[in-house]
């Protein structure tokens, strides 16, 4: 590392510039316009204002923190103000140039409406731009003032700000869960009420502050406990968590259970992909194929349609078709695994992607229409029945999905600690060394592939049954990318990470419907940011974290930069 040179105002301006560019991007992509209708505090601040403000606040905060080190408190203020001003200036320039340059001819979102949303309420033209820059400076100064506070208090403030925003955004969720009286106080028809926002902010601030002080003590107390007491404690915690999970649909109601179901499908799938990518290090981009195979087997076996198939196989019930669906996915995993596993690294990723696309095209084609239903898909898929009940509502489905998550969790967590799991991790670290340690590469890789495929098939079978009808469009490559993103955000190889990732990437966008349109855009950015700044994920696996941090140094594990030396040519 170079020795750190003093942080100057030019650096602050540069940070502000990045913030400004980000703000211009979110404006032109259409996010500002889409979020303008959503209020955070009713009638005071809208979501798009918060978003734009964050683009000035964040660089100012970074700039001030760094300036504080060599410029003192005054330096921090100056740096914050400069960063905020530059970020706001860029937004102001965008607002002023939209009409004269006729940017709308190229950017569909560069509308007069956007200009109104970018400039402060009730202002226009140069005057508006000036107010905007002043607002940027104020935001920058506020961020700088924050850096004056002691670290604990600063962190609590930031956590509280974020939490209040999230609570405002998730109004639909919270107003279902919390008592009506509280809800009426906190929320207005659109966003938080002013009093509600203030009370929430202070409450969360206090809780976050206390938590930061108490947490180390609590940790120490738990550490000092005798082993037996600690085990009792973790048992109680597990039981409590399970009880909560089983009570959830009652609390959540129909719509939120629907979202929980979707998150559940992805958790099962991601637990499966976690075995393939996280444990064994095989990047599978065609994972959706196994999901599709599970879903389609369920569909084809239980639908009353498709006369050709019915003339061979009688129509089955859900429970009869479930093991067959899972078995089909497993077999497909083995069959596709054999050719795929001859390649490695990047080639494996591409070849699986190719397979996924081939399967999708086959399902979509007229050639297989009598068996698969072609582009119209299949309808009338059976629902789970038994004990005189039929799982129709999302709440009832929730329990089935929860059980499959628990099974998947149990299986993969046991596998991870088994001989098989250790072999997978050895393969992930270095195939050649693993082979030299007499690990049967093909066998173990196939096992990983088959395990992943089985879980995807399980998820797919439930998915098919839940939907009741199926079209090939549900199985494109985006699903594979989605699952991969869940893994990466959560932390590859980490089981709790999978759950965190699925809630953040699948649940949140479902709940923030305005956000849904930008989900892939944000996913792309999130993938890149995670890889650049936090490759170990939000809830990292301990081994994996160590390995990634080691690799920041010139890399010792992978000397062969192409990784294909054995299979392919060394590039020119």
């Amino acid at each position, binding site marked *: 590392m170079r020795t750190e040179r003093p942080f100057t105002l030019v650096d602050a301006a540069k940070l502000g510039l990045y913030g400004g560019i980000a703000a211009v991007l979110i404006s032109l992509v259409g996010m500002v316009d889409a979020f303008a209708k959503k209020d955070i505090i009713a009638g005071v601040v809208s979501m798009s204002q918060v978003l734009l403000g964050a683009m000035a606040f964040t660089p100012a905060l970074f700039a001030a923190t760094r300036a504080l080190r060599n410029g003192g408190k005054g330096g921090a203020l100056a740096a914050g103000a400069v960063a905020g001003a530059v970020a706001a200036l860029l937004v102001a320039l965008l607002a002023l140039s939209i009409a004269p340059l006729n940017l709308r001819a190229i950017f569909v979102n560069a509308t007069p409406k956007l200009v109104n949303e970018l400039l402060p309420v009730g202002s226009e033209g140069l005057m508006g731009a000036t107010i905007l820059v002043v607002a940027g400076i104020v935001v920058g100064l506020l961020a700088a003032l924050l850096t004056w506070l002691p670290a604990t208090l600063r962190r609590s403030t930031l956590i509280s700000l974020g939490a209040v925003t999230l609570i405002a955004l998730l109004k639909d969720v919270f107003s279902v869960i919390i008592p009506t009286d509280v809800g009426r106080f906190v929320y207005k028809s659109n966003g938080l009420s002013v009093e509600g926002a203030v009370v929430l902010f202070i409450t969360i601030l206090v809780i976050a502050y206390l938590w930061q002080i108490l947490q180390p003590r609590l940790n120490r107390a738990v550490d000092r406990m005798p082993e037996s007491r600690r085990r009792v404690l973790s048992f109680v915690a597990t039981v409590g968590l399970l009880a909560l999970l089983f009570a959830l649909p009652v609390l959540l109601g129909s719509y939120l259970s629907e979202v929980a179901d979707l998150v559940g499908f992805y958790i099962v799938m991601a637990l499966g992909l976690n075995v393939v990518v996280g444990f064994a290090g095989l990047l599978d981009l065609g994972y959706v194929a196994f999901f599709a195979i599970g879903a389609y087997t369920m569909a084809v076996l239980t639908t009353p349609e498709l006369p050709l198939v019915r003339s061979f196989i009688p129509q089955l019930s859900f429970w009869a078709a479930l093991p067959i669906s899972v078995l089909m996915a497993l077999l497909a995993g083995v069959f596709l695994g054999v*050719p795929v596993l001859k390649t490695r690294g990047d080639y494996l990723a591409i*070849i699986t992607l190719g397979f996924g*696309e081939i399967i999708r095209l086959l399902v979509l*084609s007229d*050639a297989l229409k009598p068996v698969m239903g072609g582009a119209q898909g299949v309808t009338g898929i059976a629902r789970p029945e038994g004990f005189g009940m039929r799982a129709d509502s999302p709440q009832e489905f929730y329990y089935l999905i929860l059980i499959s998550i628990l099974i998947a969790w149990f299986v993969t967590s046991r596998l991870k600690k088994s001989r098989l799991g250790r072999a997978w991790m050895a393969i992930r670290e270095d195939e050649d060394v693993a082979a030299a340690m007499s690990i049967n590469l093909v066998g173990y890789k196939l096992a990983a592939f088959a395990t992943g495929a089985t879980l995807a098939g399980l998820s797919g079978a439930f998915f098919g049954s839940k939907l009741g009808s199926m079209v090939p469009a549900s199985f494109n490559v985006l699903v594979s990318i989605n699952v991969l993103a869940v893994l990466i955000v959560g932390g590859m190889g980490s089981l709790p990470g999978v759950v965190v990732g699925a809630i953040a990437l699948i649940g949140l966008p479902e709940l923030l419907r305005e956000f849904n349109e930008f989900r892939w855009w944000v996913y792309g950015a999130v993938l890149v940011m995670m*890889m650049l700044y936090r490759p170990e994920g939000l809830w990292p696996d301990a081994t994996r974290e160590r390995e990634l941090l080691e690799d920041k140094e010139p890399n010792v594990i992978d000397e062969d930069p192409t990784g294909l030396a054995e299979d392919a040519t060394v590039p020119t």
Partner: protein
Amino acid sequence: MFSNLRRKYDFTDYILWFIGATLLVAILYGSYVTLSSGKYTTEQWLNFIVFGLAQGGIYALIALGYTMVYGILGMINFAHGEFFMFGTFGAFFVAEALAISGFLESNPLLSIIIMLAAAMSVSAMVAMLSERIAYRPLRRAPRLVPLITAIGVSYFLQYTARGFFGSGVEAFPNVPALAGSIAVGPITMQRSQIAVFAATGILLLLLWLIVSKTKIGRAIRAVAEDKDAAALMGVDVDRTISITFALGGIMAGAAGVMYGLVFRQVAFYMGFVPGLKAFTAAVLGGIGNLAGAVLGGLILGVIESVGPSLFLDGIGIPSPHQLKDGIAFTVLVLILIFRPSGILGERLSKRA
């Protein structure tokens, strides 16, 4: 090195050869039935081939970027198809302006050159920015990290274009000078196809000159061979990699103009499938090898255009053209399994 260890797993090889043999028999049988039934005339076959070559030329231009980046960084730049897409949009907006002003009709050649310049600069800029922001910090990261980053970049760019330019499919302006067709012997060729052949040929020649004759080209080859040694010899590695991305972007931008002229449409998602196919082309020819990328592109284009009628029609598969992409992906899978070094790969690996 571990070939003796591999011997133990012969059953996988048997399965692979079984799959290969089945496919080969199906292809030969299908071709035999189609050809003996005389369903298509010789002219139709020639037209299929010409169309395939034009499409293959576009694949070849995109594949060059894949191959150069792979050659220099050993990384699959998943987002390369998106550079191509941005280039097409660049050309589209210029072409629209030119069409409205009437310049496109009065000065077609100059218009196309302006379109090329616009597309190339947009693509090159996007490529260089992506490299600078997303890939450069990850030079020494573990293998999967840059690939996942590239997937992220790909989605980010794709949906940025969706947000910027809208989610619909736009019609590329008609260039009147390129409408209609010319008969060359028994083949009727679209004028736009001829333009694609000419432009592709010129660009390939230029790229070859740059890579093999100029100082920058020598730097690129040196960095591809050994980054650290090249740095010791005074080559600015970061700058060279940036230039490589720019060159790849330029070729992708040119491909974007060709695509616009031939297929006459632009959409935000248009980069993904051609990108994947261009990657197939690059692997088919031998990744890291410039001539291989061109050869692979042309071969893939022809296989794709001839294949559905030749192989699938004969076996009796209804509406075989739906499976056109399926054929390309099957080629990809087969090449990666049976000959990952590609057609021109081996000679190079001996030299290196």
